[in-house]
């Protein structure tokens, strides 16, 4: 979780460092919109701890935490975010389009796009007789899209090895769940499709770890899909530059930050010392710094290459 947080913190800093004017998202070394995942680390870490190289993840527009937790190379990912030829997509995708075939990792800026894709991956895994699983990740707002319901229906009907992860960070951009959703519980919706659905409260990484472990075990054993809704926290804006004037919970955000909260538990229980936590943070900082340097040092694509490696 610390590694992810240090990464996002540094990207935050670098993203804003050369935006001039500040509202021009195309300006600076990191072009385009930026959706950072600070606060949502427990979801990625608790789930990905159960996944291996052959397991697939489809992530949404806020993908960095799941990418890093699933083992996507930090250098290649950072170069992609910077639009460099050494990036995962040779600099043509940007931060919302990270595709890593080696780790079966993909993400998309199209809301709920990853749900049916995960079903397709899971169908292939099942037909090949493997024990691999596909994990579809999206936010609670995405669960109001038709693709979500179509995917749940197919996954349940075909008993696919899919784990649907809903990151409920309370805000679908600026819309609270209760204002847009007749049934506010996605665990309820899972039950409607005949698959187990659970909700993990309080952004608790240990609780996510246990629930995800049980869901992955079920899928690998051929017991079919599961849904886990994780009540998590969007520590920062929907995108970088979001003033969050709509947000009514900002005064409690700091106290709900999962990293200092979990660090305090680990120290209190004698699992880690403050010095060890500092070391973890320093190690992460060094890795992140190297990735940024690698990206900045990498070339940008040539205009003549614009039509290479694209199919549409």
């Amino acid at each position: 979780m610390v590694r992810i947080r240090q990464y996002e913190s540094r990207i935050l800093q670098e993203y804003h460092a050369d935006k001039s004017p500040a509202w021009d998202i195309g300006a600076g070394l990191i072009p385009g919109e930026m959706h950072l995942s600070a606060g949502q680390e427990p979801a990625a870490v608790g789930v990905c701890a159960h996944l291996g190289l052959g397991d697939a993840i489809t992530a949404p527009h806020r993908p960095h935490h799941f990418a890093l937790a699933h083992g996507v190379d930090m250098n290649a990912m950072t170069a992609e975010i910077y639009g460099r030829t050494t990036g995962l997509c040779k600099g043509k995708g940007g931060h919302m389009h990270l595709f890593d075939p080696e780790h079966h990792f993909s993400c998309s800026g199209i809301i709920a796009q990853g749900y049916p894709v995960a079903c397709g991956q899971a169908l292939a895994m099942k037909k090949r007789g493997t024990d691999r699983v596909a994990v579809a990740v999206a936010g609670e707002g995405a669960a109001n899209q038709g693709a979500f319901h179509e995917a749940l229906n197919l996954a349940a009907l075909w008993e696919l090895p899919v784990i649907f992860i809903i990151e409920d960070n309370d805000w679908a951009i600026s819309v609270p769940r209760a204002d847009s959703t007749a049934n506010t519980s996605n665990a309820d919706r899972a039950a409607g499709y005949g698959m187990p659905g659970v909700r993990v409260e309080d952004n608790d990484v240990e609780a996510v770890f246990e629930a995800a472990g049980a869901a992955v075990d079920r899928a690998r054993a051929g017991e079919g899909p599961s849904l886990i809704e994780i009540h998590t926290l969007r520590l920062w804006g929907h995108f970088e530059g979001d003033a969050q004037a709509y947000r009514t919970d900002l005064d409690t955000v700091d106290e709900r930050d999962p990293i200092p909260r979990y660090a305090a538990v680990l120290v209190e229980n004698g699992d880690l010392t403050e010095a060890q936590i500092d070391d973890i943070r320093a190690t992460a900082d060094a890795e992140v710094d190297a990735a940024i340097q690698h990206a900045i040092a990498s070339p940008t694509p040539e205009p003549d290459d614009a039509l290479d490696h694209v199919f549409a």
Partner: protein
Amino acid sequence: MGRTTVGVVANPASARDVRRLVALGGTMTTHDKLNRLQRLLVGLAGGGVERVLAMPDRSGITVGLRRLAARPSAASWPELEFIEQPVGGTAADTRRATEAMVAAGVGAIVVLGGDGTNRIVAGASGDVPLVSISTGTNNAFPLPVESTVAGLAAGLVARDDGCRRAGTHRAKQLVVRHGSRVERALVDVAISDGDRVGSGAVWDGGTIRELYLCFAEPDAIGLSAIGGHLHPIGRREPGGLAVAMGEPVVATIHPPIGPGLVQPIGVRSIDVLVPDTPVEVRAASGVVAIDGERLFRFGSDDRPTITLRPDGPVVVSAASVLTHASTTGLLATPAARATTATAPASHDPTDPPPEGNHHDDARSARSVHRDGPHPAVRVPDPAGVPR
């Protein structure tokens, strides 16, 4: 005199935990909960309640209830008011809401949740009677009761008229002390192996080393079934039970410790817990689970102590309340009292009867009519019923 007010705590998160994955826990949807709340509100109105103070949430209960309350069909409901308080989506919401209800002078608090929700409410409810409707996964503390009936009972208790004396009693509780930390259990305290609190729920009976029980019913689901299969102890009996697991195993039982979860449990010893007598946990280290929820870790130098106490929350037996209300004329118009019939204060449908059906209301109803039927009701002579 103020308006008759009842508090309502509905846990939006109940029946959503990991036991749907590691056991066969069912789902109590938000709409199921709203349906029960609707029934409850109708029952509360029927019981004479004028105002309801409810806990707010952000998970669909508050929004749903407000919408339902605005419909014409809700015209007869009590006035519905949500407590002004921050909503964090944690047990702290329940605690705060209960405190506010007690401060507001509610005559009863209705709890929709599981053992865990009742435990939090009981920590702040003081002398206010609790009416518990189970919306949890595997609950031992709330007894089965239909929500409309629960509303009637809560209303009658809030208005009193003798219902409180006749239909409530103090439950037992287990008080767990660990350093400065004090927790209470309404059903069980389990000491298990492991080093993390995790998702809270306990589903691997093989990890449980010790179990302390307020009561042990043979037909229970959950950890208390372990005691129930060994040595039944009723809710109204003074003692409790302590069970130790592991070697040397003197008996093996197969209790249902969760929904669809029957596991062999090797028992080393059982002891009766004496009220007000602290016992120290034997295990050198482990995790303490209270009412089926892992809460904290301990080590060899800070082992918790556990004390059975008779001063738990005041709980309502809907059957006893309605029996009293019926036999004293509270349910009839015009209100009229039987000349000799009185509700038996000792009737307790929550104690397991010999035949194993602890909700045999017909039995108690028969007994209270021994002195004659309600004078407002003409009871036909059975011999005169045409066939």
